[in-house]
């Protein structure tokens, strides 16, 4: 036991919490659009793995993490399109097709890695960018303004997606499609088109979350690199009640619990490690369980749209 939690330790915990929140935030904001439009995509984890691999591989081959991000966005869009095809056009049961997409992403990313990379290799990933002036603010500077570009992107997306969802006409259409698709349909809003768009955006953000893991954190790729983070992201959408600010809160809660327990272990504070490692999950499960009963959800969530019928 090396001492108490002082301000230096606090900075480390908070800065790590911000960094750890990024993949959850990106994937959950994407899934928020998907669910707002009335579809739930349980394949987030699989899309993340594909994004993680493609971002890594493009960076390895092309030498630029920015190109890696671009490639992962394209791959994510394709994965979203696949989910849209299966669940919107073919109206497959969404839970099952999502799990299918997850397995597909896991298998394919592992296979491609074996075929085209073959062993553990590291890449030059994204570098931390200190925001001028802001990063020199005491305490807040190192916590908030000393991260790589994807971290800033994720946090900026919170107000941006909030604006799109609640203030833009497209956002209004998304919410209408997710709540009363038949009403939206009579008003001339294409339910199918909106759901396709949301699944593609969701896929891109999930892939970006995956790419963050490989080129923004680990700077390498290994099988099953996402390790369940995609499922946490889906839980955070529920936790955040389909709102960007709620998702932000949930992501930070989970990640800060995670960085806190890491530090507790590192400092040798007498606390069983088994409890420490499950702390973030426990906090999220408990919060989810408590909040679920009273929660509003998009009314048409999970129901394939068929013109002329009522959900």
């Amino acid at each position, binding site marked *: 036991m*090396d001492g108490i939690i002082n301000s230096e*330790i606090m900075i*480390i915990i908070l800065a*790590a919490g911000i*960094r*750890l929140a990024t993949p959850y935030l990106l994937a959950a904001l994407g899934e928020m659009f998907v669910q707002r439009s009335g579809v*739930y995509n*349980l394949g987030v984890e699989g899309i993340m793995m594909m994004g993680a691999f493609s971002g890594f591989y493009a960076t390895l081959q092309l030498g630029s993490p920015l190109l890696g991000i671009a490639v992962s966005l394209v791959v994510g869009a394709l994965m979203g399109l696949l989910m849209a095809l299966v669940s919107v056009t073919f109206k497959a049961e969404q*839970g099952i097709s999502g799990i299918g997409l997850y*397995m597909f992403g*896991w*298998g394919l990313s*592992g296979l491609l890695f074996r075929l085209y990379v*073959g*062993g*553990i*290799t*590291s890449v030059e990933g994204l570098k931390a960018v200190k925001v001028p002036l802001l990063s020199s603010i005491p305490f807040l500077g190192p916590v908030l303004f000393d991260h790589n570009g994807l971290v800033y992107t994720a946090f900026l997306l919170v107000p941006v997606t909030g604006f799109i969802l609640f203030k833009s006409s497209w956002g209004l259409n998304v919410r209408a499609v997710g709540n009363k698709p038949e009403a939206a349909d009579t008003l001339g809003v294409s339910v199918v088109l909106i759901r396709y768009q949301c699944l593609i955006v969701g896929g891109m953000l999930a892939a970006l979350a995956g790419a963050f*893991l490989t080129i923004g*954190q*680990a*700077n*390498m790729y*290994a*099988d*099953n*690199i996402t*390790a*369940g983070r995609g*499922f*946490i992201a*889906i*839980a955070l959408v*529920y936790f955040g009640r389909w709102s960007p600010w709620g998702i932000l809160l949930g992501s930070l809660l989970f990640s800060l619990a995670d*960085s806190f327990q*890491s*530090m507790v*272990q*590192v*400092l*040798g504070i007498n606390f069983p*490690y*088994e409890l*420490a*490692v*499950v702390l973030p*999950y*426990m906090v*999220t*499960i408990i919060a*989810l*369980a408590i909040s*679920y009963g009273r929660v509003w*959800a998009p009314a048409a*969530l*999970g*129901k394939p749209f068929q013109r002329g019928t009522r959900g």
Partner: protein
Amino acid sequence: MKKRVFSLLLAVLTLLALSGCGAKPTAQTPAPAPEAPKVEKLRIALVLPATVDDLAWGQSMVEGLKAVQKTMGEDKVEVAISEKLGGAVDAGSAIRQYATQGYDIIFAHGSQYQSVLTEIIKDFPKTTFAYGTGFTTHPNVFAYDPQAQEGGYLLGMLAALMSKSGIVGIIGPMESGDAVKYNYGIQQGVIAGKAEVKSRIAYTGSFNDIVGAGNMAKTQMSAGADILTGSSQQAVGALRAVAETKNAYWLSTDMDQSGIAPDHVLAAQVYNWEKIVKKIIELRKAGTLGGQHLTLSLADGTIELKYNAKLADKIPAEAKAKIEQAKKDIISGKLKVELPKK
């Protein structure tokens, strides 16, 4: 519908919380056996929890088998490998399949396979099975058991003698099996190396979350550790984080990981599986199908301490001499590295 998703989600979350990492479905099935081999070929199968290229536990065994195959001749030895079989059920069916196909020796390379094996071995009394880390044997089962604490002790000494900050960071997967032995060795070695240096253990709760291990390494380093080590497949994530940090060094175990970070891996505890595999082959030839507990240790050269040649001049001669002495003492039995008492 919403309820269903919700309960599904809760179930997945709970699973994640319990396992700390998540389940692994089968990704590969064993390759079908070629029909009736013409020459009298020794057929060896290997079942791995992770991948053949994990730069750790799995890969070290694969390299051992390949080395044996090379020295005995490719036409004399056949090696088949199934990977990503973390789950006992999937692994069990792969092992049974290999046994049915007439493989002579089947390596179930993980301590978690012990209980699966006990069910299978009765049906194949002529087949030799080997698993590890473990010590429980049967007439046709060898158990192999690396004394990870021995190399850990030497690496711990090195860490203490090399640390400038006075803090050695250990990143463990879970508190079980090999990892515990290794960490125990490191801790005792650190104390022996320099009494005032501290070692800190933190567990990620997962064997394969390289991102989590990387983040744990970053936390360790930001809290002062400058020499780090850790075991299992996830460790490469931590190694990578160390490699991105100035004046931070890594000590690897299971195999030499200096290949991916030549400027940051000081030394490695290397398992020499080739010798173990050869021994099992010879015992089988002599009619012993199993029943022996085979340890890997510094004494018989199945565990080696390997310095990274590129960083050799960074390690002071007296530190090396001190470690060399400890190695001799461990081999002669004068120095006993303690193990956790169960």
